[in-house]
């Protein structure tokens, strides 16, 4: 398998994974915008997290920012797979920023709110997977 083929496979896998994250974040955004209470198997933890002040930046739900970020990851991965070098360059800082934001939100859930939202943990897992894929990209793809 050539390096470029391996790189393209990783980029397509990243695009597919980002679509799963996009679906999760879109669902959470709609919940935030309609004001519906999320239930995590009857546990109030989802509400504690998603109803907290940490779930919004100003008046914008964090989930909406997340959905935008996942969409950008998808778009950049697709463009990168089709040979657009600039998209590849943008993918790394974007996923890096998402990784840092995920660490912050995990800290907030664990040490500030003492409650975990399953949808958010799922999103965190997806971001970690994307970060792993970016790290695994052949070095030529990272420049």
């Amino acid at each position: 398998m050539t390096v470029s083929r391996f790189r393209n496979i990783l980029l397509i896998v990243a695009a597919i994974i980002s679509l799963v994250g996009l679906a999760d974040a879109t669902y959470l955004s709609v919940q935030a915008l309609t004001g519906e209470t999320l239930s995590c198997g009857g546990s109030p933890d989802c509400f504690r997290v998603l109803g907290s002040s940490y779930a919004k930046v100003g008046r914008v739900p964090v989930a909406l920012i997340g959905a935008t970020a996942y969409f950008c990851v998808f778009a950049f991965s697709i463009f990168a797979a089709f040979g657009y070098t600039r998209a590849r360059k943008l993918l790394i800082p974007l996923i890096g920023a998402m990784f840092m934001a995920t660490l912050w939100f995990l800290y907030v859930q664990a040490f500030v709110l003492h409650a975990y939202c399953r949808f958010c943990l799922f999103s965190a897992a997806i971001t970690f997977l994307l970060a792993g894929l970016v790290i695994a990209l052949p070095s030529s793809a990272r420049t």
Partner: protein
Amino acid sequence: MKRFLPFVIVGIVAIATLGSGAMLYHSKRQSLAAIPATKVLAVTSGAESPHIRGNPDAQVTLEEFGDFQCPPCGQFAGFTEELLKEYDSRLRIVFRNFPLSAHEHAREAAIAAEAAGIQGKFWEMHDTLYREQANWSKAPNAREMFESYAGTIGLDVDQFRKDVDGEKAKERVDSDQARGESLGIKLTPSLFINNQPLDQKDKNPEGVRSAINSALEQKSKSGA
């Protein structure tokens, strides 16, 4: 063609995401109707005996459709106590059951509250259920906890068990739920102030106070 393919793929995903998001938003967003004249609260009619807190003849009625397992409803329950102190005899609060199917024990809790109501302690059970929400919500057998609450608030526990299994409490819950559904309720808490629905965006302390104040002003203008 290959040059344009990524644009097509990204465009299709963007349209699909926006479209499905918009569809989901419209399906979840509730559009509440005002309470029609035929269903307006009539305390003296005997047709319905709603659970009322505060002055039964108050100028303003806040009707809440709540779910005992819904965390915002629990928060709102604490806020209603503040409201009753603040508005004193000018406000009455009516509670209606609207257990959401997504909440495992919500219907059981509503029936427990109604069973307590049969012994005249609806509000005591209402307060206990919200106060203890985090505990019974996760319990595998919530009913045992409800029975212990019944004992704590001074109910005849054997009678409470019979009432929980009986039809009267269930019918009461079903009747409240049917009323809520006929008004277009999908979310809890859903609030009506003097029969007018409160918008989702106003479901906060400032919004509720502002709506109550407007209702009071209207009443004073109309001389009621």
